[in-house]
Every structure is written in C-alpha cells, then in structure tokens.
C-alpha cells in the first residue's frame, strides 16, 4: 500500500506541482484549507502531513500544534524558506515537526524526507500495537491471578471440606454421596485446567493451516456428548455439506466446535421433555458456516454483550469457569472469522460461526 500524504499549502500552484510530482509514487491529498486538511487527516488515514509554514490563516507550526493532540499519529513535515530558520528550530526542538524541507523543494529531498517519515510512522505504529498487546496481556494476567485463586481453590477447598465431613461422620450411607461430590470437584478442577491450557495454546502456538476433515472433526466433538448419560434425552439433528475442500487450523476449529457444542448440551432446560440441538456445517470455497441452535435456557439480553469476556458467568446453572466462549472468540479472531449470537431467555440460543476457507 502506498504511503498516504496530506499536503497543505495556500498556493494552489505548489499544491498542483507537488501532486503532479508524487501522485504516482504516493497517495497524495492536497488542500489550501486547514479545516479541510483536518477532515482529510481524520477520514483518509494520513501517515504523513506536510504543511507550508507561511499561510494567511495560520502558520504551518500552528496548524501542527492544533492537530497534534487529537491526531498524534501522522508524522509532521514543515515546508519553509530559510528566513524562517528560527521558527523551524523551535518547532523541531519542541517536537512539533519531524523534518523540515526548505523551499523551493526538489524532488529528491522531498522523497528522502517522506521515506524516513514513513519509516518513523511504521515504527511508531508498531510500538503502539506492541503496547496495546502488552496492556491486554497484563489485563488478562490480572484476571487470571484472580480467577486461579478462585477457580482452582474453590474445588480444592470443597474437597478439603468433604474430607472433614467424611472424618467426622462415619455413616456408611454417606459414602457414595461424598464420593460423587468428590468426583464432581475433581472434574471441575480438571475442566478449569483444560480450558486454561486451551487458552494458552491458542495464544502461543502458530496457526497451522491444513485440509480439514470437517465430518471427522464434528463427529469427534459430538461423540463425547452423545455418550454422556445426561444427554440421552437430547434430540440431535446434524446437517453437513462438505463437498468443497476446506483449509484451516483443525486444532483451533476443534476448540470452537467443542466449546459451542458443550454449551448447547450443558445449558438445556432441566425438565424439558423435548430437548433439541441442531447443528449445521456448510463449507464452500469461501468459508465454513457453522451453526448450533438449541432450545435450552437461553441468555438474557443483559448478559449477551458480556458472554465473550473472560471469566464471565451468566447463570447459576453455569458450571464453567467463564473461559470457554472467551477462547472461542479469541480463536475465531485468530482465524479471521466472525461469530454471531442470537438468544432469548427460556427459548434457546443460536451460535453462528463463519470461518474463511484459507485455501492456498
């Protein structure tokens, strides 16, 4: 993509000759109006802003001072004659401008200034991206510490409590109940640790694109749930169209499928006589369309904006750690797909995932 440059000057002739000289190499936007220049910076993702120092309404330095706060990203270059040397030195020293070009300009020195400004811009943007990533990682770490103290300790403390109960109450009838609870606590802890591992695997491992056997992937994800005794009364309807070869990261797809299906099975209405889950998977050369609908407990409108947040739990029936859907969202983002949720409390939910076909 070519470098996007704004040039502000009160002399139309300068503007036109600048455009003529550089429009083939760069994307050039010109104007003689400072207000219009601000609009262009706002709307056109300008990387480099060049302004003439001597203009009737305001000087170039004043213009830069004006845009600096709101639009700090574009690198600023001042065009000026030697007579303004004092202004220029001050502008550079105070950080208002990155470079200055003396008038009348020649093509080579402008090109040179633009190249180094573009490099500077890239470095700045890279730093900004890294900072955002870092802040996000720190925020995640914070939530993790908090959640680990709760989600790891809670089942452990429950096990400790169960041991206490077993010690003080020798009633043999109590034994099987205690063991059931013990097992539940162990499963809960194990489930939490597994979802933590999923989360970090998605975070750290590179995406590996290969041909995906969608049918196998779905059967595999469904097999676990089908076998589970508590799901025997769930009516499952599966629709697959996988004639087109589909390329993506099968391990990450498995996470998406697995987590969404787990939710569909878990959040059924307990006493519903007609528990129902519909799964549809349609692949074409562009994308995979994966849709899971259930008639379970659904999600209230107040929770929907938050369900993809880490450690968010929407309901008392919720057994999970609040990581599953967060991982789904992260994976879908990584695979450059999107996810849409429709849900009504007591009526059920539909999770619709679209993943692009990463053909070679």
């Amino acid at each position: 993509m070519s470098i996007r440059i704004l040039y502000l000057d009160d002399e139309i002739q300068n503007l036109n000759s600048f455009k003529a000289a550089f429009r083939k190499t760069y994307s050039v936007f010109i104007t003689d109006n400072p207000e219009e220049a601000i609009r262009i910076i706002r709307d056109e993702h300008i990387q480099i802003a060049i302004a003439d120092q001597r203009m009737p309404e305001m000087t170039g330095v004043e213009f830069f001072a004006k845009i600096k706060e709101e639009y700090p990203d574009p690198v600023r270059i001042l065009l000026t004659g030697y007579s303004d040397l004092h202004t220029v030195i001050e502008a550079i020293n105070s950080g208002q401008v990155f470079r200055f070009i003396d008038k009348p300009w020649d093509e080579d020195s402008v090109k040179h200034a633009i190249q180094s400004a573009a490099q500077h811009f890239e470095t700045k943007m890279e730093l900004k991206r890294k900072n955002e990533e870092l802040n996000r990682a720190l925020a995640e770490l914070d939530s993790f510490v908090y959640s680990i103290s709760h989600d790891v300790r809670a089942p452990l403390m429950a096990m400790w409590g169960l041991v206490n109960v077993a010690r003080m109450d020798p009633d043999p009838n109590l034994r099987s109940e205690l063991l059931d609870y013990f097992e539940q606590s162990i499963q809960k802890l194990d489930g939490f640790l597994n979802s933590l591992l999923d989360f970090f695997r998605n975070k750290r491992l590179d995406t590996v694109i290969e041909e995906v056997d969608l049918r196998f992937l779905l059967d595999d994800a469904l097999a676990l749930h089908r076998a589970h005794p508590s799901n025997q009364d769930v009516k499952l309807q599966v629709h697959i169209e996988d004639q087109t070869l589909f390329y993506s990261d099968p391990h990450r797809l498995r996470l998406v499928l697995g987590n969404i299906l787990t939710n569909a099975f878990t959040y059924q209405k307990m006493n519903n006589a007609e528990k129902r889950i519909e799964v549809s998977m349609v692949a074409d050369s562009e994308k995979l369309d994966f849709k899971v609908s259930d008639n379970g407990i659904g999600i209230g409108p107040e929770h929907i904006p938050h369900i993809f947040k880490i450690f968010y739990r929407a309901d008392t029936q919720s057994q999970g750690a609040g990581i599953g859907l967060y991982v789904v969202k992260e994976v879908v983002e990584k695979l450059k797909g999107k996810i849409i949720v429709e849900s009504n409390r007591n009526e059920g939910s539909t999770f619709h995932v679209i993943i692009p076909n990463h053909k070679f």
Partner: protein
Amino acid sequence: MKVRIIILDDNDIDLFISEKVVNRFNHQIEVKSFTNQKNFLEYVQLSQFEEQLRQVFLIDLKLVGETGLDVADYLYLQTSIRKDIYFLSSTIDQRDLEAVRRHPLVVDLLTKPLQAHHLSRILS
C-alpha cells in the same frame, strides 16, 4: 435461645459441607439452606420477626449474577436484620476483604470450607 443458621450458597457441594458441619457441631441448631437469592430473601422477610430465636446468616460471597454484598445490601435496606451476617468464600482476596470490611452489616469473611472452629467463634 434457639439458634438458626441460614445459608445461601449456589454451590451444591459447599452447601452440603456447611450443612453437615453445622449438624455435627450441634444438632440442636436448625439449618436452613438456599441456593437461590430470591427464595432466601423471601424466607428472611418472614423469619426475621420470629421471637426467641437467634438467626445467623452465612452467605457465599461469589454468588453468580449477584455478589454476597448485594444480598447484604438488600438485607440492610429491606429488613430489620442488623447483626450475625457472615460471608463464606473459598479465597481471601485482598479486594474482597476490603469490600467486606467496608460493609456496615457484615461481621467477617470466613474461608471455606466451613469448619467447627468457625462456628465456635461465631456462636461464642
């Protein structure tokens, strides 16, 4: 005086443990347990007026949907209960502890699992 311990905890296992511990500690103590805020509050609305009875509240701090602190707020605003309110939590997070200390109604935060020594301290 008769003692009744009212427990609100949406975790079945923890609730089971708490009930057992109270029964074992003193089987004359009546235990009422709830997994859901609504039923708990409805019960308390009525039971607060019973006489010759000391009611002690053990509320799970991390209730899903609402926190234990919200429930304590409700008790403060909607009932005349002013004492014997305790929180249960499996973790002692500094932030939680401070929030609990700031609440005018709550006496203390007890670390799960509930144990006999907690009860001796509360009831002494």
